[in-house]
């Protein structure tokens, strides 16, 4: 069961102007991913672009692996052209995912933008005592809204411009939640993935309130499996590889 395998594109559906839902079916036996893990996806068959691109898995069904991706640069632009039936090479599952919350903890999950992909994989596993926050700039950039509704935990959706859900940022909602169940605040456990600005704000809030948690970080990657040392991020224990020790790190260990 190799983590380097071929997969067939089952579908590649646009969710909004910028993002697609990609469903891949492994053609070989593949390992099951844990929440927060990711895959390196081949975006084309020339050497330009050269490297595979990292994507958190969004959902694992019995046969397929699903990804939510936004078009950002030339690699993701090529991914938009993936056609049903096309066969691509992928590597995964990779990295160290989210540790499960211990008993009694209330998990607060925050997915900013495409960060929801990584968060969703965890959200699906949590049966209770979970809040799931998803935010985006505007209605058109929200993702997986219906899927979020189907979760067991309580989900909150917000947009910067108020065009859907609450008007405001996930950080504002987080603050509210923490205030509401303030007696238990140190029993909250934050899980977040999203833009750097969001993570920094959440990190400050967490530090202020003495709440622990985990962030999934992004960094440019060449290999994705620990060999190139290209994806280093600074932690209190020195440089760590986002692709191996991460992408999930305890909030308090991250050096911004």
């Amino acid at each position, binding site marked *: 069961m190799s983590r380097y395998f071929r997969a067939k594109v089952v579908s590649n559906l646009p969710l909004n102007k910028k993002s697609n839902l990609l469903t891949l079916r492994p053609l070989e036996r593949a390992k099951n991913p844990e929440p927060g893990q990711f895959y390196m996806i081949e975006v084309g068959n020339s050497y330009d672009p050269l490297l595979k691109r990292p994507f958190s898995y969004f959902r694992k069904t019995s046969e397929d692996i699903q990804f939510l991706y936004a078009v950002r640069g030339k690699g993701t632009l090529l991914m938009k052209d993936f056609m049903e039936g096309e066969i691509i090479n992928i590597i995964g599952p990779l990295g160290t995912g989210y540790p499960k919350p211990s008993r009694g903890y209330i998990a607060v999950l925050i997915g900013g933008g495409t960060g929801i992909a990584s968060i969703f994989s965890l959200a699906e596993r949590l049966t209770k005592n979970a809040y799931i926050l998803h935010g985006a700039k505007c209605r058109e950039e929200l993702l997986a809204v219906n899927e979020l509704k189907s979760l067991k935990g309580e989900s909150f959706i917000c947009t910067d411009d108020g065009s859907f859900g609450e008007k405001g940022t996930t950080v504002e909602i987080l603050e509210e939640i923490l205030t509401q169940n303030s007696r238990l605040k140190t029993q909250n456990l934050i899980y977040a993935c999203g833009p750097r600005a969001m993570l920094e704000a959440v990190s400050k809030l967490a530090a202020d309130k003495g709440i622990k948690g985990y962030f999934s970080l992004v*960094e440019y990657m060449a290999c994705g499996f620990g*060999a190139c040392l*290209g994806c280093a991020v600074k932690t209190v224990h020195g440089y760590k590889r986002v692709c191996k020790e991460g992408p999930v790190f305890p909030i308090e260990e991250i050096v911004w």
Partner: protein
Amino acid sequence: MDLTVHIGNLKLKNPVMTASGTFGYGEEYSEFINLNRLGAIVVKGISLEPMEGNPPPRICETPCGMLNAIGLQNIGLKRFLGEKLPYLRKFNTKVIVNILGNTIRDYIRLAQALEDERVDGIELNVSCPNVKKGGIIFGTDKKMLGRLISGVRKSIKKTLLITKLFPNTSNIHEFAKIAEDSGSDAISLINTIPAMAIDIEIWRPKLANITGGLSGPAIRPVAVRMVWEASRAVKIPVIGIGGTMNSDDAIEFMLAGATAIQVGTANFLNPKSTVEIIDGIEKYLKKKGINNIVDIIGALCYA
């Protein structure tokens, strides 16, 4: 079919080696390929003391290539010997250790310690473009390079000594000759080419280190030319490195004069690259009716 090649006193079961810094300490690839199949494993550059490396971002992509400025992050000699070498020893594959230091003394101490542990070969990294204090001055200064190589040569007995050359010169044949004359058993080339990329949205270098080394298919034509020039200048074996993605590329290097090749960036795209290259070479030789791989080394025809 015989894929065996000889580099100095080392007999490699095939000419496919890994390029330093792209294959970790071997372990990272053990789940993807059978490490026993490789001609040799060249591990990430080792220094006397651990080095923490450069701040991120450390890599970025460029057309058909990538830049890296890892900054020679490594666990240092002691931990390498204690934690990594024993693992590599388990395989029936030669182990070559890429080393780097700030002074000739550093290199000598590294080489002696590694010879004591009976590694199969030492590759002198005199050419890494990413750290100011590091080997770079050796790589571009002919006198210093000669002194470094003879210093190391004298300090070790029989361990294979490879000098890895710096591509940023107009006279690679002179550097190759110095390596030969100073006692190197082989040369390997090329290391990455110093390069740079800028994010035009934020007006900053894409790498925190500002510059980095270019690797990947983009540099292959430059590497093939240098291997060709170097192999005509010296009698010691030349190991071709730079943008080998598949067996065709490996064969190109060998026709140009390389006795063996190293696979670098390709490992990142496809962790099975090395074994697929070995298989591909075998297929090519079969198709061409060649029984012994040495028959293609430097077999380029002219006119």
